[in-house]
């Protein structure tokens, strides 16, 4: 007869926790996503990362809000000048304003990073879920194809694909080269996400509640979207937020090799690649784009972490 007492305890502690002591709170039906939003609203880290994200998105959409300088205006006489009143972040190797270039660079870096990650998550997520859910031949096929891509060294694969589609001497449009870089990053990156999604879904699939749903007569779509995905989202989300940063870095590597984004396109990656060897004589030209890149990655990581925590009812 200990159960009623347990219930009482639970009522009190849970209500204190939720901050809603009145029983009418039970009248509104709630679900996972509504509850997740309720938790997010109360998290400081969520709002900080959201404000930073909005700032970065504003830079992406309206760089002129932040600077009225022309990022392509070059005065070689002032090459590698340090930060001053006229040029807040100093002047780069080619005599261009580092602040203006950092602001304008946000667009390509963020678009390439987020779009490539999005493409990776969609591609890797769908294939991973299919491989785990249908198993057997579907799994064998998807896993082996994924391993073929995984076996390809990253840089080598990128050189081959980019070198064929957009060779170093060619002069592709900004949109075209960005699209190609995004596709290359996604094509070479999806197998890792596929594996993460696959293993998370396989783990969730063998839980009793999935059996219970099947016993109730639930179809594949309901099982995947109601039971498997919500319970395997955490590792996918964590990996995706880290990937955004590493993709922005990978974009820089490709630029350094002369096959990725190339001038006149402005990006953090190009700025970092251009000035990596001048770290002792003009650290500012390297420091500011790198700092923005780190802040941007941090934003996505914090956001991803906040969402992941809010999605887990046990942490409420």
């Amino acid at each position, binding site marked *: 007869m*200990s*159960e009623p007492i*347990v*219930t009482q305890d*639970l*009522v009190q502690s*849970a209500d204190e926790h939720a901050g809603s002591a009145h*029983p009418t*709170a*039970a009248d*509104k*039906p*709630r*679900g*996972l996503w509504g*509850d997740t939003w309720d938790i997010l609203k109360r998290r400081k880290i969520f709002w900080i990362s959201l404000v930073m994200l909005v700032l970065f998105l504003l830079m992406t959409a309206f760089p002129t809000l932040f600077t009225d300088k022309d990022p392509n205006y070059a005065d070689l006489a002032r090459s590698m000048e340090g930060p001053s009143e006229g040029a807040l972040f100093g002047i780069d190797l080619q005599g261009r304003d580092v602040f203006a270039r950092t602001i304008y660079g946000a667009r390509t870096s963020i678009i390439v990073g987020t779009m490539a990650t999005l493409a990776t998550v969609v591609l890797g997520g769908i294939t991973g879920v299919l491989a785990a859910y249908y198993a057997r031949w579907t799994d*064998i096929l998807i896993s082996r194809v994924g391993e073929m891509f995984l076996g390809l060294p990253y840089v080598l694969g990128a050189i081959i694909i980019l070198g064929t589609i957009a060779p170093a001497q060619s002069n592709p449009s900004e949109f075209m080269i960005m699209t190609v870089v995004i596709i290359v990053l996604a094509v070479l990156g999806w197998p890792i996400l596929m594996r993460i999604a696959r293993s998370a879904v396989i783990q969730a699939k063998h*839980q*009793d*509640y999935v*059996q*219970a*749903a*099947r*016993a*109730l*007569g*639930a179809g594949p779509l*309901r099982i995947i979207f*109601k*039971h498997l995905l*919500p*319970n395997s989202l955490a590792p996918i989300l964590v990996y995706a937020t880290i990937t955004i940063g590493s993709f922005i870095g990978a974009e820089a590597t490709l630029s350094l090799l002369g096959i990725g984004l190339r001038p006149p396109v402005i990006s953090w990656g190009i700025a970092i690649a251009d000035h990596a060897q001048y770290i002792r004589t003009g650290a500012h030209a390297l420091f500011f784009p790198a700092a923005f890149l780190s802040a941007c990655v941090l934003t996505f990581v914090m956001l991803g972490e906040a969402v992941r925590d809010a*999605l*887990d*009812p*046990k942490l*409420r």
Partner: protein
Amino acid sequence: MATPAEPILEVRDLVKHFPLTQGILFKRQIGAIKAVDGVSFDLHRGETLGVVGESGCGKSTLAKLLMALERPTSGSVRINGRDITTARGGDLKRMRRNIQMVMQDPYTSLNPRMTVGDIVGEPFEIHSEVAPKGDRRRRVQELLEVVGLNPDHINRYPHQFSGGQRQRIGIARGLALRPEIIICDEPVSALDVSIQAQVMNLLESLQKEFELAYIFIAHDLSVVRHISHRVAVMYLGKIVEIGRDAEIYDGPTHPYTQALLSAVPVPDPEGREQRQRIILQGDPPSPANPPSGCRFRTRCWKAQEICAEQEPALEIRPGSPHSSACHFAEVRDVVGSG
């Protein structure tokens, strides 16, 4: 309780062999685990059939076969005369309304990311014709009340409940579609002893209220005795003895049942000293390669040549007033209760 009317569940010669394969790309079958190997029984409305046996004897596979979560190798499971093992699609979905399940572990059988309302309401979402949309919330709250939970807790998550309460949520989900049969796969083995009794009593009162038929799978003989009208004892994928609970507990005729019952703790010091423990030698043989003839013969003290040559059928025998699969079946009181 067993009525002579039509059984609502008829299981005939149910067999499930899991193939053992070798090789990665080109799989060769090198044998089979005979998890369930020719099981037959009937279940009537409002009746409880207890199924006991040690780990690995095929109890849980049997439950999965009855729920059509696994397809049998052969045999049939008829619910109200219709075979669920061959049903597909919409037919199968409709038949599922009649047979539901309460799972063993209340900590893994509830989706941690769904509210109690969503979990108990899921049957209505899947079978949308059972309850109109506006009515579902009320139905869910009714169900929570039936199983003794606070209907206001509909927006809570499973981790906010104790083990016993979680099992009640699982029972509410099983009841939602008003099934006639509920398979309980060790529903109390993961719970504290004090909570076990509460859940057992709940199951009993629900049986009276809704005329439910239970298949009650357990390895705890005293739990099974408490709730069952009839008991089936399984060993290595086969039923070795089946009968009314008093017949099995007071007059077991199969040596395996006698050995099992002799291990039940007796709460009486005097009886404990007088009774004989039957200690079985060795481990159960591998279900991939069961012994010829009687499967129990390798551990049986009565085994003779005929046991290796001829498989004993599950039938009423001269020494056994109920069905027993032993050539030398004879009543032996091992519990000592008279």
